[in-house]
């Protein structure tokens, strides 16, 4: 655009005193109005308010603006607000540029004069860019009204139920042979004390009865293509070998010669290679542990209904879904051998093994005994693998403190003369669970605060626990009969998941949410949502809520929609300049670039529905044929020139 044709409006927001307290907004507006091409420059208390937006709309109509600059807060907060205002007034919203003079200026500086100068620089640069902007049209994407939920723990179940009740087609898959996830290993879900398997059963029962729900167990996502509204997902389902004819008679299990530790009983007991994970398991049939099974065929002979076929091969299933919810959960921390005495004696156990010992249906029938004896002195060590231990995530696992206090009360109800010590760094029984802490105190549980992690030494029958009590600052030695390590949550297979779905991880290794506070349950990739402990440690209640949150965001995206509009801020090829060198094709993390022919010539082409606007291809393109809408060289260089006054 030539200067004389440019008609730009510039709006400086006070943000109350957030900006105006440091930046001289009047001065910035005065300065902006002196720049060629600017026909109006105003400042106002809250540009995002109705009045502020109307200012822009009126000016667009009355002054025939063809470019708008708003200098206010972060675009993450109000870019959409202003874009919509510009659009409503009849101007293409991509002729609008937002400048962040709050986070990038007033909040980071204290010197009024310098902050004002910086705001002027930023505004001048935006004006220069707007002069080079081009109107863009949004990209229409067709929507598939179905959702894939990856993981069937409480978060996945909660998400799937919410979506299925709203009438969407839901695919729920789990890499394990049964639904329910981690919670099925718990017996005491604090503070209500419900068994995990009973907790998920009604959810699973409702879900699997729904005609619009498809369940795949033993299944994992191996690749994802496409984008919001229309993902193409390839799933690999490992064989289950046992058909729905299974009557749970159990003859196969008796015939099976292979025994391995039973992970569903905290490895406290053994199970066969063909086994029923637990009696409430869904699908209600025996499963075969592929790693343990030798395919000897004895189970086939034993099965009275001919439900077993060991020749079944893995299969691949291609799904087309509009959104994806990742609810792959966590893995409990597994202490190293010797870490706090773990693995050196059967009397140092993890919190998960404790759960099984307290379960009426567990290996001891709910009697709290170890090696046939009732442990009298019991020491709990909290935060193992989360805040203390060989490998820590530095993330509080949230559910442990309430579970510890609940478990001690349960033990005391079974064996009232137990001596129980809880060694802790912080007790975080928040909300309603605070009551459990006081109950434990009242019932004689001794809380020992440490700063240095305790040391555990196995001495014959006794386990000596050494700890320096931090409030009285004295060393204490506790000869214990049983030590329970409360283990934290670690990311479950997150590396593989982020690779397949092209997401990123937090420093702790969990899958990163788009924004902890503003965009929970979302990922930066449109149409892919996160639920439960996959995004960081959560309690059961929180996971249920998080699952429902992810589902409602997916619903908002897909429900009753035939297509969605996507921002056209994507890469675009100038076919006239493209030499077909293919450098860009290998750069694209989203497989959005392919090759097409213009007559005889081979050129690159970008699918705007698959492009996520990362810009990698534009940076790599050796000839400058690939450019990024809204971030073209001429637009960025205009900003650089406006800033530095240099000829680039």
């Amino acid at each position, binding site marked *: 655009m030539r200067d004389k044709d440019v008609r730009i409006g510039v709006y400086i927001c006070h943000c109350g005193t957030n900006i105006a307290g440091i930046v001289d907004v009047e001065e910035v507006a005065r300065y902006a109005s002196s720049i060629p091409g600017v026909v109006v420059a105003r400042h106002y208390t809250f540009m995002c308010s109705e009045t502020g937006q109307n200012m822009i709309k009126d000016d667009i109509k009355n002054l025939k603006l063809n470019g708008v600059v708003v200098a206010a807060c972060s675009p993450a907060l109000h870019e959409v607000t202003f874009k919509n205002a510009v659009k409503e007034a009849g101007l293409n919203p991509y002729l609008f540029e937002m400048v962040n003079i709050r986070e990038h200026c007033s909040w980071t500086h204290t010197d009024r004069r310098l902050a004002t100068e910086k705001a002027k620089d930023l505004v001048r640069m935006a004006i220069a860019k707007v002069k080079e902007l081009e109107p863009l049209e949004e990209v229409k994407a067709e929507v598939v009204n179905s959702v894939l939920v990856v993981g069937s723990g409480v978060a996945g179940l909660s998400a799937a139920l919410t979506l299925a009740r709203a009438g969407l087609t839901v695919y729920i898959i789990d890499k394990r042979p049964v639904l329910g996830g981690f919670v099925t290993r718990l017996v005491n879900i604090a503070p209500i004390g419900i068994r995990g398997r009973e907790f998920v059963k009604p959810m699973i029962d409702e879900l699997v009865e729904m005609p619009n729900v498809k369940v795949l167990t033993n299944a994992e996502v191996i690749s994802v293509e496409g984008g919001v509204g229309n993902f193409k997902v390839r799933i690999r389902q490992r064989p289950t070998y046992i058909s729905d004819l299974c009557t749970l008679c159990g003859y196969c299990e008796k015939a099976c010669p292979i025994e391995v530790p039973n992970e569903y009983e905290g490895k406290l007991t053994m199970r066969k290679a063909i086994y029923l994970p637990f009696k409430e398991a869904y699908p209600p049939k025996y499963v075969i542990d592929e790693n343990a099974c030798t395919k000897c065929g004895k189970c086939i002979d034993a099965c009275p209904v001919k439900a077993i076929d060991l020749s079944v091969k893995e299969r691949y299933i291609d799904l087309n879904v509009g959104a994806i919810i990742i609810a792959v959960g966590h893995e409990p921390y597994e202490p190293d051998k010797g870490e706090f005495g773990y693995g050196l004696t059967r009397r140092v156990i993890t919190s998960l093994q404790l759960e099984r010992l307290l379960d009426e249906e567990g290996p001891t029938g709910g009697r709290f005994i170890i090696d046939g004896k009732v442990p009298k002195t019991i020491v709990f060590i909290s935060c193992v693998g989360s805040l203390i231990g060989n490998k820590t995530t530095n993330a509080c696992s949230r559910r442990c403190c309430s579970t510890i206090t609940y478990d001690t009360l349960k033990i005391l109800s079974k064996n009232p003369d137990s001596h129980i010590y809880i060694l802790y760094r912080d007790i975080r029984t928040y909300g309603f669970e605070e009551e459990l802490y006081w109950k434990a105190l009242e019932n004689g549980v001794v809380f020992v605060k440490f700063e240095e992690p305790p040391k555990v030494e196995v001495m014959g029958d006794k386990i000596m626990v050494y700890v320096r009590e931090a409030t009285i600052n004295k060393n204490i030695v506790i000869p214990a009969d049983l030590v329970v390590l409360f283990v934290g949550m670690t990311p479950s297979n997150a590396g593989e998941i982020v690779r397949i779905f092209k997401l990123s991880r937090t420093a702790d290794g969990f899958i990163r949410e788009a924004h902890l506070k503003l965009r929970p349950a979302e990922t930066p990739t449109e149409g892919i949502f996160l639920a439960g402990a996959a995004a960081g440690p959560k309690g059961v209640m929180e996971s249920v809520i998080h699952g429902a949150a992810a589902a409602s965001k997916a619903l908002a995206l897909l429900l009753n929609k035939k297509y969605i509009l996507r921002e056209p801020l994507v890469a675009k090829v100038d076919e006239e300049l493209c030499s077909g060198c293919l450098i860009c094709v290998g750069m694209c993390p989203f497989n959005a670039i392919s090759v097409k022919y213009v007559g005889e010539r081979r050129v690159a082409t970008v699918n705007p529905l698959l492009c996520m606007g990362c810009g990698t291809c534009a940076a790599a393109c050796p000839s*400058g044929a690939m450019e990024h809408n809204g971030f073209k060289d001429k637009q960025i260089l205009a900003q650089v020139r406006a800033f530095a006054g240099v000829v680039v």
Partner: protein
Amino acid sequence: MSPKVRVALYWLASCGGCEESQVDAISDKIDIISNLEIVFWPVAMDFKKEDVEKLPDESIDVAVINGGVRLKEHVEMVKLLRRKSKIVIAYGSCASWGGIPGLANLYDINEVLSRVYSEVPTLQEKGVMPRPKSVTNEGMEIELTEVLPMLLPLDAVIDVDYYIPGCPPTPETFLKALETLLSGNLPPRKSVIGASTRALCEECPLNKTKPDKVLIKEIRRIYNTKIDPSKCLLVQGIPCLGPVTRGGCNAKCPRVGSPCIGCYGPLDKHIDYGAKAISFIASILDLNDENEIKKALDNGIPDPAGLVHKFTLPASRLKVNLKRGEHK
């Protein structure tokens, strides 16, 4: 019969390759030659500076100048030719962006002179430096022009109307450029003529052998690599500059298994040719480990400026002379 086109041909810091390509192109094109009236061509015919000075301003239709501006004399001559000519053409890589002699700009001029006149091992008499004034054995006083501190592309000194790229431009490129000029339908000023508007890959026969994704784990050098001349060199790890270099040469080098070294220079959209070149090489280098990347670059690109700015350094963003050692 229309009047002949009055042409001046001149060379600056040049190797003579450009003249060869010009002669090569038109020696058998009688129809073209008969249309030209050469008014100045010191490399082949006996003209002097005074002959040009005597001509009226803008009386030459086209001045075709090759070589980079290295001497004070060059500055005087090109300013003179500019004044006398309607159209000035930068012919070849040196005139366009400095060319290979432009790599001397990486060093201070005194270091360059010392290298050339004292250190080169094949010198018979070391340390004889050029002086502005000297007396010959016969007692004749002669004057030499001064060397400039940096080698400059032609357009750093005078306005250039068109560019014909290449080291040297192929005869076909020159003929195509002449065709454009003689057609009377002149492209916008500052255009590159006679060559392609797209990168070399388009015209390279090896381009169709590329796999879908061009990613390399190693950067190889031609002196110790067995090259398969039937496959894209880039895919074989050779840093061929085809994707970043203007086409128009008909892929003469890659066609015979030798990588493009970039003599047709930048495309219209480039801001800095070398930056684009190194950026695309970095992009396709499919390594993530810092040490592996360092190893690949140390082994594969020992001389980055020599690779990506072999013909374009004086026209790049890197304009500063560096003292020897500083560029490491």
